[in-house]
């Protein structure tokens, strides 16, 4: 066995001590996230700790996937991986080595911005957010990668208004062949109906459902469907998007859970009607309607969504630069004060699935529907 821990053996992997930790800013899928500063260059970065405890199977494959994927993805709307650092085995980490992913620092996340009532988005600015979000999705999907954890807290925004998709901890490559992926992905509130019904051969459409939920949230300021069980989530989806049935979604009857789960019957599709209370723009409502389509094969893809009139009629998308320059404090969901004092049920946990909510336990959302 190599003499691990000895100096000189890792010519390429720098030590974490080159950074100075400033604050904890979040909890990722498999570890904590810190704001830190490069002691030499004074560059501010985000450091995500890779949990290595209890890894009998060696280096966690989820972490390896994230690293592999981030090394390939280089785009303005994807969080940029700068380097990977190590921490030497020492008493404080019980002689287990730790690995940190070092990212460029982004000042805000979308959930944090939306929870601050002082942050106001104009229609043109919402267009810019959605355009960048869809552009990021277009880029990863054309690179054959699924994000699998779309939610407002994973959308980072720099102080100059550039949007970056982050947290590829659940992401994986996909192929056009028949696949059997795990359906235990995506935070419940953003999980599309096909996953809730047990589909294992899914594709990029799952990320666009989440994109639709996030788009609605730009106006509602809270997640639109806050189910507390899979069953409840499907009920909420049916109430908004209409009953889940073979008439609107041919083939749905073949999904594993279609017959095993009780689905509300007879609900009419009310996406535009119910969101109209919050969203006045007709083009926005139309795009939302297309993103929140039950049948994944009919759901709009990122390319067509980017071509939607919403982005091409006045007011045209406008940079967030100006609006954000009025706020000089970092806004992260993790650090945000509770949005409003309306209690919601704790989201149930199931083994091996996405972390319960990733939300601050003190964080409460007002249910929208």
């Amino acid at each position, binding site marked *: 066995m190599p003499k691990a821990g000895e100096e000189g053996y890792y010519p*390429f*992997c720098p030590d974490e001590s080159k950074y100075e930790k400033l604050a904890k800013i979040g909890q990722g899928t498999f570890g904590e996230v810190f704001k830190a500063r490069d002691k030499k260059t004074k560059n501010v970065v985000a450091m995500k700790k890779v949990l290595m405890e209890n890894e*009998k199977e*060696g*280096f966690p494959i989820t972490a390896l996937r994230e690293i592999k994927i981030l090394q390939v993805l280089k785009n303005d709307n994807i969080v940029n991986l700068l380097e990977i650092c*190590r921490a030497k085995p020492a008493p404080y980490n019980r002689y287990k080595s730790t*690995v940190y992913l070092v990212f460029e620092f982004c000042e805000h996340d979308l959930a944090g911005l939306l929870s601050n009532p002082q942050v106001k988005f104009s229609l043109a600015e919402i267009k810019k957010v959605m355009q960048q979000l869809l552009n990021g999705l277009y880029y990863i999907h054309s690179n054959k990668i699924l994000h699998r954890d779309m939610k407002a807290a994973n959308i980072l925004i720099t102080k100059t208004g550039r949007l970056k998709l982050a947290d590829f901890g659940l992401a994986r490559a996909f192929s056009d062949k028949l696949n059997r992926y795990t359906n235990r992905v995506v935070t419940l509130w953003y999980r599309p109906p096909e996953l809730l019904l047990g589909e294992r051969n899914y594709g990029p459409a799952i990320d666009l459902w989440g994109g639709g939920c996030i788009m609605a949230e730009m106006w509602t300021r809270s997640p639109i469907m806050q189910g507390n069980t899979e069953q409840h989530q499907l009920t909420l989806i049916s109430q908004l998007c209409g009953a889940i049935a073979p008439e609107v979604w041919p083939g749905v009857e073949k999904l594993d859970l279609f017959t095993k789960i009780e689905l509300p019957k007879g609900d009419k599709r009310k996406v535009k009607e119910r969101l109209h209370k919050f969203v006045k723009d007709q083009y926005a409502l139309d795009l939302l309607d297309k993103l929140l389509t039950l049948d994944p094969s009919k759901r709009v893809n990122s390319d067509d969504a980017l071509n939607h009139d919403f982005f091409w009629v006045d007011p045209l998308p406008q940079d967030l630069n100006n609006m954000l320059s009025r706020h000089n404090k970092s806004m992260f969901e993790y650090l945000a004060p509770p949005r409003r004092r309306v209690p919601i049920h704790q989201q149930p946990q199931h083994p091996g699935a996405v972390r319960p909510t990733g939300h601050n336990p003190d964080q409460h959302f007002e249910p929208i529907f």
Partner: protein
Amino acid sequence: MSSDNEARVHFRVIRYMHEAGLKLHLQSVPLATASTIYHRFFRQAALKDFDPYLIGATCISLACKVEEESVRLRDIVNVCYRTLHKNKAPLEIGETFWALRESVASCELFLLRALKFKVVFPHPHKYLVHYLRALSDWVEPKVWEEVPVCRTAWAMLRDSYHSSFCLDHPPEHVAVAVIYFALLTHGLEVPCQKYAKKKWWQVFSKDLSLDIIQDIITKLMTMYDMENQLSSSSR
């Protein structure tokens, strides 16, 4: 150890890795990744400092993760042990098993660090498939069916990992070179090459020259020579 001797050690380790990989039903690409990680590591590390068989087993386990091939670490440990110790009884669950497993598990992180977490490699395999497909349209169907060029080229590519030249040549070049060599060994000629403005391989890769092809073929032949020496002097 002389570099000649070192090359022989690496040849043996790769042979053991391929044998274990076969027993684990690994596809060609994960095996290619495992071999490439192995060679890449020993480009920067000294053979005397490490147990190459442990590194080899770890390369297999890492490559399976990189290529999304779900193989249990338990199976890798058992199969590698069995491949390495043919005369001993299979590994029982016990101290040795857990120690070996723990070694591979912690060696994974070590390898990742040493390689700066760069474990995705472009392999010649996909190029080889496309080039062969294109060539099959040029050659007489009957001839193409009778002469096993595809199988030979594929086998040569697999064997090529016994030496480390995969690190020194772009995947397109290696793919062309093994086809070139396979055609040569079967005495098959691509039709109309005399009159063609471009050689067949120039269509596939712009920056390729006959010198490069010959260089790769020479390296392949050196590798096959080594196999002969090893088998004549027994394992």
